[in-house]
C-alpha cells in the first residue's frame, strides 16, 4: 500500500495503537524540572537515558558565563542547576552552560548528528519540528508528556492527520527559506495546520540546504502544525556524514526509502508558488500577519488585527520599508546556524550598524560560535557594531537578560512576534537574517534584493 513519509515512520514506531516509541528525547531546563519531580515522587526511573540528551538554552545568559553559579538571575540559576542535578541523578548526558556542545536544543541535535532520518524525536518545546528537516517525525510536548517519555520512552498520541505543502517553481533572487515559510503561514493562516503533520515537498525544498529546511520545519508550529518534515536525500546524507552520533557508514539505502510513495492522498494539500514570494516582514502579533517588504501595513480586517496594529503602534498604509527600528536580533532556533550567520555577515561586511540601532548576534550553539569565530565572522559583526554573544535562546523569548524595553521595535530572525514575546511592550518584526542585517545598517527595513544589487 502506498504510504506517506509520515505514515512510514508512524507505523515503524507504534508500540500499541496511539502509543509511539520515542527514539530521541531532548530535554532543556525550562520544561523539565516538574517532570523530574514527578519521577521522584512516584519512585520512577528514566527508562532510556541513552536515548535522552539535555542542554541548557532557554534562560542561560549569553555573556559568556561558564558555570551555572555565574548566572546572576537567581531563578535562572536555580533552574539550570536543577537541570544539571536532575541529569546527574537520572544518568542523562547534559551539555550545560560552559560545555563546548551547549546550545539551542534544536541546533545541537542536528549538529551532533543525533537527529537522523526515520526517527521519532520529542522535546518539551514547540519548535521540535525543526528535526523533521531530516525526515524525522518530531513533535513538541508539554511537561506531563516529558515525564511520560522519561518514564516509558513512549508518547501517547492520537494519530494526527496528514498534510502536504507542495512548492512549485523556484525562489526568486534574494528570497530565503525564512521568507518561504513566513509567506506559507501567511497563506494558510496560523491555525491552518492544526492537527496535521505537514510534509514540505517540491523542487524549491529539494534545492534547499539542510539549514534552510530546518528553518522551514522549525516554523511549522507557527502555522499550527503538529510536526513538519522533509524527505531525506543526498543533501541530508552529506550533512550527516561524519557527525559525532551519525552511523558509519550511513544506512543510505534504508534512508532513501523514507519518502512519500506515489499516489498517496493527504488529508489536506496546499500549493505554494515559490516564485511569487518576496522578502517578508511581519507587521502584527502573529506570524501570519505578514507582508512583502515592498508592501504596506494593511487595513485591519478583524478585531485581532486592530488590536495588533494598536500594540505594534502602526498605521495602515505605512510602507513596510519606512518602519523605523531600535533593535536587531540575529539568533534563535529558526536562524542561528552557521549558514545564517554567514549570510548576515555577507550583508554587513564593511558597513556600520546605524547609530539608532542596538544590534546583536547570538549563535545557536557553542559550536556554531566557534566555527563563526574560526571564519572571522565575529570580527565582521563586531567591527560593524554588532554585539557578539554566546549561545542560547536569548531574545527570541527573553527569559534571560536579553530583552526589549517597552515600546522598542526589533527586526528579529526568530519565530514569534507575539505581544511581549521579546520583552513586555516590545514590538517584534520577523525577518530573514539577510533582511535583519540590512535593516541594522539602514535603521529601517530595506528590500534586500535592491540592496544586494546596489552592493554588486
Amino acid at each position, binding site marked *: 500500500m502506498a504510504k506517506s513519509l509520515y505514515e512510514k515512520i508512524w507505523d515503524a514506531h507504534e508500540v500499541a495503537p496511539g*502509543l509511539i516509541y520515542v527514539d530521541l528525547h531532548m530535554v532543556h531546563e525550562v520544561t523539565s524540572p516538574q517532570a523530574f519531580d514527578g519521577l521522584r515522587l512516584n519512585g520512577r526511573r528514566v527508562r532510556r537515558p*541513552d536515548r535522552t540528551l539535555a542542554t541548557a538554552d532557554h534562560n542561560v545568559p549569553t555573556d559568556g558565563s561558564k558555570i551555572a553559579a555565574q548566572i546572576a538571575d537567581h531563578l535562572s540559576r536555580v533552574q539550570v542547576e536543577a537541570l544539571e542535578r536532575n541529569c546527574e541523578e537520572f544518568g542523562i548526558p547534559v551539555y550545560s552552560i560552559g560545555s563546548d556542545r551547549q546550545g539551542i536544543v534544536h541546533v545541537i541535535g542536528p549538529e551532533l548528528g543525533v537527529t537522523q532520518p526515520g*526517527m521519532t524525536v520529542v522535546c518539551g518545546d514547540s519548535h521540535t519540528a525543526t528535526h523533521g528537516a531530516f525526515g524525522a517525525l518530531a513533535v513538541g510536548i*508539554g511537561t506531563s508528556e516529558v515525564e511520560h517519555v522519561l518514564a516509558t520512552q513512549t508518547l501517547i498520541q492520537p494519530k494526527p492527520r496528514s498534510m502536504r505543502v507542495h512548492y512549485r517553481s523556484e525562489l526568486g533572487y534574494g528570497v530565503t527559506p525564512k521568507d518561504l515559510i513566513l509567506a506559507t503561514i501567511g497563506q494558510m493562516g496560523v491555525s491552518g495546520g492544526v492537527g496535521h503533520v505537514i510534509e514540505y515537498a517540491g523542487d524549491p525544498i529539494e534545492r534547499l540546504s539542510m539549514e534552510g529546511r530546518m528553518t522551514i520545519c522549525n516554523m511549522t508550529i507557527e502555522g499550527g502544525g503538529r510536526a513538519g518534515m522533509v524527505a531525506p536525500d543526498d543533501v541530508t546524507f552529506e550533512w550527516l556524514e561524519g557527525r559525532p*552520533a551519525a552511523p558509519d557508514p550511513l544506512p543510505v539505502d534504508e534512508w532513501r526509502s523514507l519518502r512519500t510513495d506515489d499516489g498517496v492522498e493527504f488529508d489536506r494539500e496546499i500549493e505554494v508558488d515559490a516564485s511569487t514570494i518576496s522578502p517578508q516582514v511581519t507587521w502584527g502579533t502573529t506570524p501570519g500577519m505578514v507582508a512583502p517588504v515592498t508592501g504596506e501595513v494593511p487595513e485591519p480586517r478583524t478585531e485581532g488585527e486592530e488590536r495588533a496594529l494598536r500594540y505594534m503602534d502602526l498605521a495602515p498604509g505605512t510602507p513596510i520599508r519606512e518602519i523605523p527600528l531600535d533593535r536587531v536580533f540575529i539568533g534563535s532556533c529558526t536562524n542561528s546556524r552557521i549558514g545564517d550567520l554567514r549570510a548576515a555577515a555577507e550583508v554587513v561586511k564593511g558597513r556600520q550598524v546605524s547609530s539608532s540601532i542596538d544590534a546583536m548576534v547570538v549563535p545557536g550553539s557553542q559550536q556554531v560560535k566557534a566555527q563563526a569565530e574560526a571564519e572571522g565572522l565575529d570580527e565582521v559583526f563586531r567591527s560593524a557594531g554588532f554585539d557578539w554573544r554566546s549561545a542560547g535562546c536569548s531574545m527570541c523569548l527573553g527569559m534571560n537578560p536579553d530583552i526589549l524595553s517597552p515600546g522598542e521595535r526589533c527586526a528579529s530572525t526568530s519565530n*514569534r512576534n*507575539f505581544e511581549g514575546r521579546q520583552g513586555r511592550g516590545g514590538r517584534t518584526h520577523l525577518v530573514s537574517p539577510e533582511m535583519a542585517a540590512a535593516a541594522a545598517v539602514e535603521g529601517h527595513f530595506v528590500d534586500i534584493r535592491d540592496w544586494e544589487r546596489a552592493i554588486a
Partner: protein
Amino acid sequence: MEPIQVIEGGVTALLRDDVDTDQIMPKQFLKRVERTGYGEFLFYDWAKEPGWELPHNPILATGRNFGCGSSREHAPWGLEDYGFKAIVAPSFGDIFYSNCTKIGLLPVVLEEEDVRALAGAGETAIDLERQTVAFSGHEVGFEIDPDIKHRLLNGLDDIGVTLGNADAIERYEADRERSGPVTTAL
C-alpha cells in the same frame, strides 16, 4: 488527576482568537521549578489593561486557536489554578490541547456560534460521558478522542497506564528498536 463527569457553573468569556500561551503565562513565570501557584500570574500583562475582567468560574469560553504557540504547560497549570475546569473554543493549539488533557482540564471544541451563545448564556453544564454542553435550554454535542475521554472520566495517571503495558514496550525494544543514536556514548 480527579475524574471528570459533569462540569457545571458560570462561564467566563474571553472572545479573542489566536490567544497564545505567551499571553496566558508570560515567560518570567516559567523560571519557577514548582508545578503549583501559577493562577495569580494568569494573563499577567493583559490583566493590567483597563477594562480587563476575568471572573473566577469553572468554564472559560474563548476564541479560535486558543493556546497556540509555546508548549509551556505552565499555561494550563495557570488556568487550572485560577479555577477553570473546562475551556470551550472553536479550536485549540495542538500541544496546549494535549497538555490540558494531561492535568484534567477539559478542552471542548464547539462551533464558533455555539461558543458565542455559550458565552452569552453565562452558565452551562458540560457532561463528558455524554459529550454534551447544555446552555440556554438546549444541548450541543462535542467530539473527543475515546482514549482521552476514558482517562479523563476515570482520572487515570497516563504513566501508570502505560507502565501497565510495559511488556509491549519491552517487546518493541527487543524486536523493532532502531540501533541508535546512543546519547550516553557521545
